[in-house]
């Protein structure tokens, strides 16, 4: 019989945490990536709790992990701190030996007062069920929008998918996205500037834009310079391109995009100056036009059902869309992937609820 104990993270644990992470997920995470994720975020150090088993020889082995990443959010003028559940895992040999929910309940008692709200993003059904048992509400669905930018976009996607799967290069068969920095594209009524991670760091627009627009937004992640720097420009996994869209008629917008699948642009974040007018739609259309001009055949944008309700469904019903597969999928497939959320006692005084959030892929870490 083993003896079990739990404690918060101490320096040095990252090695055994990464070992267990690799065992569970198959992914190797470096120490630098661990510290980026759990120690260096603008919201502060993560809440990291470990479960240990004392082996017959007296040594302790790390068998479980529960983490809460502090993520800065805004609600109108208020700056808040939310906690994101991440890296919940138990060593496979011990899953039937311990009752993990008991441990998580104890951990939550210690950290919940630090945050205004808690949320999870995606995860195995069992983990989502755990959250619901802890009082999280899973009302809102994740929605992924895909636009095919050219005829044959579905074919290009299939080539790209299978070439990646079989580790072959597909670049001679499909369009590729130009990777550039400090570039300027002029569209009718809208100018678009594009910067890579290194150059974006020094652009004043990204220092001031969020402060000037945040009061127009509901509950949403903060986009202050420190948040953008940590989430995108210092990201150890993915390189991003940060775009500024300027329009005299529709105001400004900021977009952050990534290109991890050849020919596909993922819009990881999109913020406009006037979100509740047709400017969201028109500036997003401009972004898609830019993507097509720069070689992409596909654009993806992930958000939640309440985010879409808030900006307006018509904002994302953009044409043309050459992806027939996507249209068929949208008709027949019923997505049931939800985003669990919980308002903590500290958050209730700000009037925030589990609905009416504006959320993008920004709240993932870019780990595919």
């Amino acid at each position, binding site marked *: *019989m*083993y*003896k*079990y104990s739990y404690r918060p993270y101490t320096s040095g644990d990252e090695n055994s945490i990464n070992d267990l992470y690799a065992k569970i997920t198959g992914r190797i995470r470096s120490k630098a990536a661990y510290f980026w994720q759990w120690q260096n975020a603008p919201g502060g150090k993560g809440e990291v709790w470990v479960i240990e088993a004392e082996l017959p020889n007296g040594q302790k082995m790390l068998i479980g992990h529960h983490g809460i990443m502090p993520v800065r959010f805004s609600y109108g003028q208020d700056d808040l701190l939310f906690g994101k559940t991440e890296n919940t895992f138990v060593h496979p040999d011990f*899953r*039937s*030996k*311990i*009752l*993990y*929910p*008991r*441990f998580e309940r104890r951990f939550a008692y210690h950290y919940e007062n630090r945050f205004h709200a808690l949320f999870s993003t995606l995860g195995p059904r*069992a983990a989502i*069920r*755990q959250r619901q*048992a802890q009082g999280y509400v899973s009302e809102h669905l994740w929605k992924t929008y895909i636009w095919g930018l050219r005829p044959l976009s579905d074919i290009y996607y299939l080539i790209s998918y299978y070439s990646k799967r079989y580790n072959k290069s597909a670049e001679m068969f499909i369009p590729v996205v130009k990777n550039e920095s400090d570039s300027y594209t002029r569209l009718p009524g809208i100018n678009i500037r594009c910067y890579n991670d290194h150059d974006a760091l020094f652009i004043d627009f990204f220092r001031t834009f969020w402060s000037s627009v945040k009061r127009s937004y509901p509950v949403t992640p903060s986009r202050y310079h420190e948040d953008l720097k940590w989430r995108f420009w210092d990201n150890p996994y993915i390189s991003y391109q940060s775009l500024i869209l300027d329009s005299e008629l529709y105001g400004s917008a900021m977009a952050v995009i990534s290109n991890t699948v050849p020919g596909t642009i993922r819009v990881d974040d999109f913020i406009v100056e006037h979100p509740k007018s047709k400017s969201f739609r028109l500036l997003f259309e401009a972004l898609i036009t830019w993507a097509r001009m720069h070689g992409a055949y596909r654009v993806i944008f992930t958000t939640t059902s309440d985010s879409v309700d808030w900006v307006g469904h018509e904002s994302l019903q953009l044409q043309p869309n050459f992806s027939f597969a996507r249209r068929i999928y949208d008709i027949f497939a019923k997505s049931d992937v939800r985003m669990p959320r919980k308002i903590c006692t500290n958050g209730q005084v700000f009037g925030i609820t589990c609905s009416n959030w504006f959320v993008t892929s920004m709240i993932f870490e870019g780990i595919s």
Partner: protein
Amino acid sequence: MFTIESIRQAIKDAGVDINPDTLPLDGEFRNFGLDSLDMFNIFVEIEKLNGSQISDDIIGELTSIKSIFEYLNK
């Protein structure tokens, strides 16, 4: 003295998706589709019945009605 019936009642009170009256005494809970969250809810009720917490070290060994009965009555 705790009875088998009181343990079956605690399982019912946990609200899990199984009829405890049909559970064999030595049937492993996980073999009947109960996951860790179901077990958590069951042991919340068992601890209420017992009047005290059950140690994490022991709880993994209590995998059937029979093992719970023997533990509570030791």
